[in-house]
Every structure is written in structure tokens, then in C-alpha cells.
């Protein structure tokens, strides 16, 4: 049914349709509306046979989820940013134990400095923890991917992180087609765990594994994620068969076939990028885009194929590998191995900085003439940076960087602080 609702609410409805049995909730901007909506659905009796637990921290949230999933209950939670880091130990634990938990990450920057706005640093920090990581481009996709996530997780016995840009998607009111219960029930059967805590068949779960077996256990985890490269598209096909939409899968492309320049990105920014591509195509410029929908497992072959014939690749990412450059770009370069066309890294949108058509257009024009540095920070205020560097050269007690810069850009009123 078509509805005009907030992205978070759409996700809550979608998760509710998947008949979760245990939901753990701890608030953190920007996912809070999702767990609030789910809590309301449970309280009103609309979502039945579901335990909604208010926990005391994100670490507890995922830990409770680990317990309930191991005991055979379909389990869901949501977090972002600092919360994802706070539960980091449990994130690795859940995947190591092979528990099919589904978790929404409302992508948000990580402090310090504290920042509540969107970028993808949080999901990226857990990219190697063994979870499947799927990124949604729109709120419709967010709904669809959550439904697929439960099936992917339970098929592989592996946890899945559904990543959606905080505020840009979570807090946007948009038109969404919310599926009905009958469709979801056809698509998603009840949870049949691979391992379960059951007095009728006692098992020990979570043993210590020493050097003689640890490598094999880790190899299997990697191998299973590689299997996911087949399972994810399969499930996307099944989804399309029942719901009629092409949501999910490993990658999507936009006007990429004959493109000389290909932009590679993740998440909602493809919306704005598509608009710029259309304008440039109208002028005869051969530019296109590739959106990575499954970041883990990383679709090396698919990306290699689609980038094979282009003249240059521009990876546009909302995250940063401090001391190296691009996180996504490094992964893309691995897919692009053996090719001579350059891969440029563009870091943009950090901490919620708006990404505008104008900036993108200028960036893409430069790319098309190979007039780009290896790594570019989009819309960087170089003068502010230079000012801070000067300050540090002049004074040994130069002060806290974040506070200095806030003053320089005028966010903090200088008059009031001197």
C-alpha cells in the first residue's frame, strides 16, 4: 500500500511485517524513530508475539539479541555511530557465532568531534566484523532490503546490517509502497535456526578455540560470506517475483554502459548524482554511475566487470581512512586490479555536509579531464584548514582543533568567547 510516511516509520512497518520475536531498543539519533515506532506497534497490539525490550546500552542491545537469537527467536535491533562502536565486541561475537540477527544502522558520523549528521563512517568501522552489509539508496529500498535481510541472514546463518543514511533517509517523508502481511509471509518463512539452545537437545555454544582450529573457523566465515555473493542476488530475484520491485542485489548501475567516466558510490547520494549525470548526458558527456548495494561481501567480480571498459573511475565516499585516504576506494581498487584506468578518491558529505549538484558538476567536469588529485575532499574550506595549521605552527598551546575551527567558520561567536 502506498503511503507518505517518514523513512524510519517505513522501516518499522517493514520490520514488523517480518514477524520479529525479540526487538531490543536503545535510543540514538538518527535511528530512534524506528525503535519508537516498533515499540508503539507492540504496545498497541498491532505487532503480536514480540518481546520489545528497553535495554541499558547498545552493548546490552546486541547482547540481548545474541541471547534471543541463539535461543531461536527472530531478532532485530537498530543503532548508529557511537552506539555501533559501543557494541563492537558484540558485533564480532554475533557473526562469529553465526546468529542471523538483522540490525539497522542509521548511518551517522563518529566522534570525536561529536556529530549527529550523516556519513557512513559507522558502518565502515565494522566492515570486517563478518556481518553482511547492505546499503539502501532510497527509503523504498530500505523497506525492501530489510525484508530481504531476514531471509538472507537466516539462509546463511549470518547477521545482516542494513545501512541507510541518517536524516537524509531516516527522517525524510517520502512515498513508499509498504507491502502487506500476506506477501511478506509468502516470502519469509518462520525462522529455522541452524543451532539453538534447547533443553531437549543440549548443546554448548561459544567454546574457546585455540591455534589448532581457529584458522579453519575463520576461513569458513569468509567462505560463507563469499557464498552470500550468490545468495543475495537470488533472494533479490525472489523478492522481485513476489513484490515486483528490483531492490537489493549486489550493485546497481545508472547510464553506465558506454560511460567514459564512472562514479562509484553507496547510499542516497546516488539520487543527486543521477540528476547531475542526466544534465551532463544531455550535453553529450559520457558519464554514468555504479551504486554498491552489498558492501560486504564486496562484489569484486561484478565491479571489475562494470568498470572494465571505462576511462576513469571516481569513487565518491562518505567516509575516510585516516592516514590513507578512501575506504571504499581501496576496496574498489582491488576490484579494478589489472586495469590501467585511474581510480580517483573523493571524500564528501562528512558529518552531514550537504552534497550539491553544483559541487558535483564541478567535480565531475574536472574528473573528465583528469584534472583531479588522487584524493579530493569535496568542498573543503582550505582557508580554514590553513588558518589552523598556521595557529599550530605559531603556538604550542594552540588549543582544541574542533573548537578553533568552529570559531573560524563563525559557528561560535568570537565576541562571546574572548
Amino acid at each position, binding site marked *: 500500500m*502506498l503511503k*507518505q510516511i*517518514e523513512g524510519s516509520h517505513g522501516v518499522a512497518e517493514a520490520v514488523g511485517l517480518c514477524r520479529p520475536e525479540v526487538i531490543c531498543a536503545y535510543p540514538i539519533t538518527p535511528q530512534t524513530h524506528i525503535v519508537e515506532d516498533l515499540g508503539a506497534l507492540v504496545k498497541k497490539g498491532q505487532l503480536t508475539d514480540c518481546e520489545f525490550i528497553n535495554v541499558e546500552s547498545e552493548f546490552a542491545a546486541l547482547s540481548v539479541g545474541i541471547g534471543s537469537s541463539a535461543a531461536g527467536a527472530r531478532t532485530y535491533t537498530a543503532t548508529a555511530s557511537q552506539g555501533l562502536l559501543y557494541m563492537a565486541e558484540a558485533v564480532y561475537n554475533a557473526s562469529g557465532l553465526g546468529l542471523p540477527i538483522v540490525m539497522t544502522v542509521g548511518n551517522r558520523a563518529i566522534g570525536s568531534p561529536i556529530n*549527529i*549528521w550523516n556519513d557512513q563512517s559507522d558502518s565502515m568501522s565494522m566492515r570486517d566484523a563478518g556481518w553482511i552489509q547492505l546499503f539502501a539508496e532510497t527509503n523504498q529500498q530500505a523497506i525492501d532490503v530489510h525484508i530481504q535481510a531476514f531471509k538472507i541472514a537466516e539462509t546463511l546463518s549470518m547477521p545482516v546490517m542494513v545501512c541507510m543514511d541518517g*536524516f*537524509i533517509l531516516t*527522517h*525524510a*517523508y*517520502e*512515498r513508499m509502497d509498504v507491502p502487506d502481511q500476506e506477501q511478506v509471509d509468502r516470502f519469509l518463512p518462520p525462522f529455522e535456526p541452524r543451532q539453538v539452545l534447547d533443553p531437549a537437545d543440549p548443546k554448548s555454544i561459544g567454546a574457546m578455540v585455540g591455534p589448532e582450529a581457529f584458522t579453519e573457523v575463520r576461513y569458513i566465515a569468509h567462505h560463507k560470506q563469499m557464498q552470500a555473493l550468490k545468495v543475495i542476488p537470488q533472494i533479490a530475484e525472489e523478492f522481485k517475483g513476489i513484490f515486483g520491485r528490483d531492490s537489493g542485489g549486489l550493485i546497481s548501475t545508472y547510464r553506465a554502459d558506454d560511460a567514459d567516466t564512472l562514479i562509484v558510490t553507496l547510499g*542516497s*547520494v*546516488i*539520487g*543527486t548524482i*543521477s*540528476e547531475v549525470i542526466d544534465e551532463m548526458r544531455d550535453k553529450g558527456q559520457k558519464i554514468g554511475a555504479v551504486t554498491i548495494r552489498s558492501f560486504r561481501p564486496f562484489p569484486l567480480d561484478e565491479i571489475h566487470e562494470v568498470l572494465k571498459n571505462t576511462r576513469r573511475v571516481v569513487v565518491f565516499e562518505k567516509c575516510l581512512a585516516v592516514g590513507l585516504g578512501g575506504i571504499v576506494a581501496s576496496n574498489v581498487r582491488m576490484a579494478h586490479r589489472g586495469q590501467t584506468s585511474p581510480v580517483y578518491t573523493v571524500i564528501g558529505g562528512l558529518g552531514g555536509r*550537504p*552534497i*550539491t*549538484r553544483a559541487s558535483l558538476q564541478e567535480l565531475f567536469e574536472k574528473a573528465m579531464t583528469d584534472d583531479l588529485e588522487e584524493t579530493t575532499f569535496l568542498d573543503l574550506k582550505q582557508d580554514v584548514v590553513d588558518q589552523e595549521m598556521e595557529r599550530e605552527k605559531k603556538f604550542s598551546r594552540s588549543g582544541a582543533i574542533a573548537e578553533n575551527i568552529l570559531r573560524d567558520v563563525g559557528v561560535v561567536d568570537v565576541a562571546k568567547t574572548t
Partner: protein
Amino acid sequence: MLQVRIHGRGGQGVVSAAEMLSVAAFLEGKHAQAVPSFGSERMGAPVVAFCRIDDKEIRLREPVLEPNALIVQDPTLFQAIDVFNGLPDDGYLLINTGRDIVELGIENAVEQLPEGHVCTVPATEIALKYVKRPLPNAVLLGALSAVTGVIKIESVEEAIKSKFPGKIGEANIAAARAAYQSTSTES
């Protein structure tokens, strides 16, 4: 595509206004996208919300930089931030105020706008009268309908009802319709 930017302060229902506008457009079969531009949630801080309306899927996710219609729920913002940034020469401007443009001191900023594109509405007063609360957002949507014709007043009323059920919804609907009628007769 039509782009609307709504300015106000925390607690004045700026975000709800954008949401209701998007629902009104949805009810007319259109695509609409409403997004808040957040600072930390705090009463009184400047808040901006955006709404885009189109006949096809809206892919653009940048802030509304060139609003076809600008709604200002709190005129004290004129001194605080650059409200008019990006307003094109044929844009619409709706201001929640009982004063006129000259009294507000913004006549220079709006002189390029066409006849009938600038509208002042004492929305807070109207809201106080019908809803007994100083929430001007629904009222201004009624005025927006009258001034721009971008959405029908019936859609605005349905949208208000979906957001505020019961008596509060009815009161807001009455207030919006009052603004619609008084604004229609003026222009």
C-alpha cells in the same frame, strides 16, 4: 519540480509543516519529499525544513537552495539568518506576521518579486483564535494553497487530519481554511 523551504524556530512545527505539505501533495497523486535540516533538537533554535513536489520520482537529496516558495514562520529570523538565500525572482514568499513588509524592514529584499507573490498572514493570531495555541504551520499551508495553487486546500485539510486527528485536527483545518479564504480574497 516545485521546491519549498520553510523557516522557523524549534517548537513552531516547521518540520510538521513540511511533512503535511508532502502528504497533501501525495494525496493528489504526486511525489513529494519532505526533509528537516536539523540542529540539536531545542526549542527556539532556527529550524529549516524542505519540501519538494513533482509528478515523477524525486531523486534529488541536496538542501533546497532555490526555493520556488519560501515560508517564514518567524519574522525574527530575518535578523538572525539569511532567509532569502537563493530565492529566485519569480519565487513566492509567505510570512507569518501581522505587520507589513515595510514595517519588517525587508522591502529591499523582496522588491524584485512579482505582484501577488509576497503575502503576509497573521498566522499565529489565526491559530490562537481557532486552535488556542500559537502554532502557525497549518495556517500557513492554507495560505500557501491560496497564493501559489501548488496544492488544493482540500488536500491540505486531509493532510492536517492525518497528522492531527480529532478536535485538534478540526481546529487546525478551520484555521487553515480561514487563512486560505482571507488570502484568496486579498490576491
